[in-house]
């Protein structure tokens, strides 16, 4: 068994601390997105807006067809959206799970598909710190 050096313990500690601080910071703000706000999801393929869809409680499925014949299957339900199927090689997009919050995204790198959530409430908290440039 190998011994950990001082630097190892320091490094692991710093990385864990960073992760925990990020998670704690994130837990406090923008918990306003509950069911009373209507939200929309913007689906972008290769930088171009493919479709926007309202995140309804009723289930509906959206098939994203990329130009080279591939697909991503999204499902809207319970005011959120999730990727349920795709024919991309790595299937990383399926691991994003069910998202409901504007800070969350679903990304399919191989197909360049991006799903973002936005609050449509006029006086939303403006928690989009990130500039979205299209």
């Amino acid at each position, binding site marked *: 068994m190998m011994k950990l050096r001082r630097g190892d313990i320091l490094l*692991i500690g710093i*990385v864990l601390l960073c992760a925990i601080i990020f998670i704690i910071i994130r837990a406090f703000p923008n918990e306003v997105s509950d069911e009373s706000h209507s939200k929309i999801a913007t689906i972008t393929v290769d930088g171009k807006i493919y479709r926007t869809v309202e995140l309804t409680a009723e289930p509906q499925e959206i098939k994203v067809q990329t130009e080279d014949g591939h697909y991503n299957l999204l499902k809207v339900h319970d005011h959120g959206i999730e990727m349920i199927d795709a024919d991309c090689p790595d299937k990383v997009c399926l*691991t994003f799970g069910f998202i409901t919050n504007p800070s969350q995204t679903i990304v399919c*790198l191989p197909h360049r598909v991006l799903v973002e959530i936005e609050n449509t409430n006029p006086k939303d908290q403006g928690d989009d710190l990130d500039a979205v440039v299209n």
Partner: protein
Amino acid sequence: MPSSIDTSAAMLKKTVMIAIFAAVAVVLSIIESMIPLPFSVPGAKLGLANIMVLTCLYFLNGKDTLMLIVLKTILTAFIFGTFSSFLFSFFGAIVSFVLMYGMMRLGRDFFSLISISIVGGIGHNIGQLTAAMIIFKTSKMFYYLPALLLTGVVTGIFIGLAVKYLISALSKLTLFQGWAVHE
């Protein structure tokens, strides 16, 4: 001219070693894709191929390791990638390589292979997120970074241990004698 024969033999040996390491790295990537992870963190992976990158960094030099990474990334992209996924993994692999190479060169007294493999894994994640940020023009993907830091520490520890065992096993082979430049 015994010396020139020696150098060309050493060159050949090195080339063969890079090729074997790259082949093993690709096989490890394939095996990795068959192992389901118990947690669903987008972008998290075991990083088994990093075992070969670190081993190469240990026995050979930075230039050879860069060659290994280019080979491995191109081969993996041919097997299960698209051009986009190649760009992302290449970017991740380069960031990961630069960080590990720097630590291998400068921080060997302070850090063990475990730290280097953790930094390599996290560097790969950060590189991919940065590439995604550039392509998609949004930094929202960094939302997943904290979770990736946690999984990166766990997988990095195991990859580092695996490298440690592999290096001590390989060092016993006559083929690798006189190659370990770092200790």
